[in-house]
């Protein structure tokens, strides 16, 4: 008898997905932040800023998954998805400005918003490519399964 998936296991699966998402976007933000710091002539980064970044990406992960239809893993980038994407990017921009990540430089903050939008689009396409590959493998496995079944049926009829 197969063991049923428990509520805890279902929650854990979702949680792991959100944490993966948080890490993905955290590293994207860290990249932009590091480039900015180096461009400003500094080789140092603020731990406070990085802490804010990881908590923000974690919170945004929950928002995306539970309230925004997990739009970056969606089938298409329609109007709704673009609205969500833009909204989330603006939230990132607002927090970065209020948190003084980019020294309250409005142009850098706007550039950061555009960067986050670009990151979301890239994430969408990467997930979509992954699903396309998975789909090809699934259909190949389906065809092989049905061919194996046909061979088995034919040998049953012959015997």
């Amino acid at each position, binding site marked *: 008898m197969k063991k049923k998936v428990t509520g805890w296991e279902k929650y854990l699966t979702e949680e792991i997905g959100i944490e993966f998402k948080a890490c993905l976007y955290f590293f994207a933000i860290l990249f932009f932040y590091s480039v900015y710091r180096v461009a400003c002539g500094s080789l140092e980064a603020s731990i406070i800023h990085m802490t804010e970044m990881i908590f923000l990406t974690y919170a945004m992960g929950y928002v995306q998954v539970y309230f925004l239809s997990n739009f970056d893993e969606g089938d298409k980038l329609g109007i709704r998805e673009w609205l969500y994407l833009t909204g989330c990017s603006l939230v990132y921009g607002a927090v970065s400005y209020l948190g003084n990540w980019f020294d309250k430089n409005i142009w850098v903050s706007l550039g950061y918003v555009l960067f986050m939008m670009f990151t979301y689009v890239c994430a969408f396409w990467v997930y979509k490519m992954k699903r*396309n590959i998975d789909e090809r493998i699934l259909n190949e496995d389906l065809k092989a399964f049905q061919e194996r079944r046909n061979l088995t049926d034919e040998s049953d009829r012959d015997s």
Partner: protein
Amino acid sequence: MKYTLERIIQGEDEVIVRYQTMTPEIQRICNFLDNGQKKIIGNAEDRQVILERNQILYIESVDGRTYAYTEEEVLRLEQTLSQLELLLQEINFFRCSKSMIMNIDKVKALKSLSSNRIDATMCNGEHILISRTYASDFRKRLKGDGTL
């Protein structure tokens, strides 16, 4: 060929075929008996239908009742989904959700969806969603690793 019928008071119904050589006639009798085991009785509005397993696209449980979907019609079954899961212990029947068993032989195409779900397009154009809970076992079944 002669045949004998023997009525019993108790015990399971049983057919014994005694033969010296397997002739086409005896083979036809055996095929008939074999096929009888594969059939399921379905109820339409005004009649009963004997369903071959390979006619079934999927079986769904709705409001405590079980229905078998073929390409032509929908038939109500007497068994529960759990009973059918035990009855249809064949590699091509797969429990794809809490309320559905699908016939993999009748799947035309698969589409990978977000959150590790799978959309199965059946040969009649209907779509069945395999949730993430069942998707992993479904992949194993396709690869031939699935247990029944």
